[in-house]
């Protein structure tokens, strides 16, 4: 009260450090500091409180400036495929989304297109059962596109509102696995030609700068239209999303905030940034 910290060089260095420690990346962090410093100068602001407000609004602007997205069109079959590298929470998030949609009385079908990893189908079958969602699966080791083929046919036949597709984790540098995604996408297009198709890339909030390469390479092989950030209930801030959203303007749809099926939050830029400063 009555004591205001001055925003000097040390203060800005401290902000830079905080941004880097949040995985914003040194290049973007430096750029952001420069921008807020300039803005503070322009408005003659010298208090630390005001500079932090400027930074907060800058971060919120970046995260809000995204392409509009409508993955759940009430008048069509919606196909949503979750993709991403290994272990980032795709299967669990798919279960969360299934339940989230069913609460809105939508007719949901699940496709277990991870035919590779040990017990991946078993894992998803348990979630399907827990959420009361029908599931289409295939043989272990089968072509994932074959499962998607069956699921797309079933979704159209059943007049499902949403077909949720779980895929195997794959490192973005594995060309053959990325080609597999292209094939799956072609299967969707051929067998559900009128569907509203959205692919959502799942990122782990603990991931550092490699998240950027993940977005680039997954986008290059399939229609990634939005992002999901999982494990934000940990201590990592997920700052890599800033550079990603700044460049790609991809909307973040959901946050995974835990291991239970209810641990899903619709993304809100203001709330996300507020959590950083709390």
């Amino acid at each position, binding site marked *: 009260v009555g004591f205001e910290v001055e925003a000097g060089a040390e203060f800005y260095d401290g902000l830079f450090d905080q941004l*880097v420690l*949040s995985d914003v*990346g040194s290049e973007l962090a430096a750029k952001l500091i420069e921008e807020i410093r300039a803005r503070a100068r322009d408005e003659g602001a010298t208090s630390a409180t005001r500079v932090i407000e400027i930074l907060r609004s800058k971060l919120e602007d970046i995260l809000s400036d995204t392409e509009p997205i409508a993955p759940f069109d009430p008048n069509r079959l919606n196909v949503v495929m979750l993709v991403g590298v290994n*272990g980032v929470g795709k299967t669990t998030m798919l279960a969360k989304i299934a339940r989230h949609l069913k609460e809105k009385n939508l007719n949901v079908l699940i496709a277990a297109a991870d035919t590779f990893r040990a017990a991946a189908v*078993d*894992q998803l079958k348990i*979630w399907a059962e827990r959420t009361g969602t029908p599931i289409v699966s295939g043989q272990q080791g089968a072509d994932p596109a074959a499962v998607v083929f069956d699921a797309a046919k079933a979704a159209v036949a059943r007049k499902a509102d949403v077909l949720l597709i779980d895929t195997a984790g794959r490192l973005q540098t594995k060309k053959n696995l990325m080609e597999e995604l292209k094939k799956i996408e072609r299967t969707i297009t051929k067998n559900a030609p009128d569907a509203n198709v959205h692919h959502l890339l799942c990122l782990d909030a*603990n991931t550092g700068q490699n998240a950027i390469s993940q977005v680039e390479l997954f986008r290059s092989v399939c229609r990634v239209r939005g992002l999901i950030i999982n494990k934000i209930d940990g201590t990592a801030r997920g700052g890599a999303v800033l550079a990603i959203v700044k460049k790609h303007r991809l909307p973040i749809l959901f946050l995974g905030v835990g291991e239970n099926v209810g641990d899903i939050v619709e993304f809100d830029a203001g709330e996300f940034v507020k959590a950083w400063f709390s």
Partner: protein
Amino acid sequence: GLTDRLGKVFSKWSGADRLSEARVEEGLREIRIALLEADVNLKVATEFLESVREKATGTHILLSLDPVQMIVKIVRDELIELLGGKDVEPPDELSASFNPILLLGLQGSGKTTTAAKLALHFKKQGAKTMLAALDMSRPAAIDQLEVLAGEIDVPVYVDRNATPVEAAKAALDLARKEGIKVLLMDSAGRLHIDDELMDEVRTIKEVTNPVETFLVVDAMTGQDAVNIAETFDAKVGITGLCVTKFDGDARAGAALSVKSVTGKPIRWVGTGEKVGMIEPFIPERMASRILG
């Protein structure tokens, strides 16, 4: 990689100008950016640069014909040193007759897969090996380990009705009884800030008294790796690290950071999804990855 970046910086200067302290500072800034881009923790990078600065401002550097190569070599040698030096102990020389090994870490870091990989490795070495399924929470976690155990033909202790601690005790007793040499215990993923689950894994460790407690860390982990590792070490105690998903293009700065801050050695590196894809940790390889 770093050589190109430094090359660009140094190419701006010429001749006698070459290696004044100011020039070295500019090179160091470039190195810092490269380290941060590689996910090396900010504090670790800062300390690392201190030791590089000391070595890089010696006169033998200033008189060198190729300052870029000299500085890159200093950085590389310092990284290798920080990662454990040129002669790391092989991670698979087990001197005890009974070796329980506990794997722990964050959700999705690669524990279950690593447990199976290590089981196969020790089995191939001729050690009587067993796995223990201690993840009772994740759907089909036990199934996952059972499938992997079946693939490598290693017995796995399973009790779906036990708590993780009960199963750990029972697995330990059975392994002892069966003359098992290596018991690999796979635990559930957990957050370092979840007190209940951290207590649980500490109890598992207490009742099984493992010869190794490995923190499994994803190579793509960012700045928070240090906080995560320090917390696991403080609350449970770890003896080493396993880095997974090294077959991607993540620069793995997190591995360096965790080793540097906890002082615990990196022992194994996962290099693929298949059960044969694990290697003993080699500092030189990780140094090259971090340098890009």
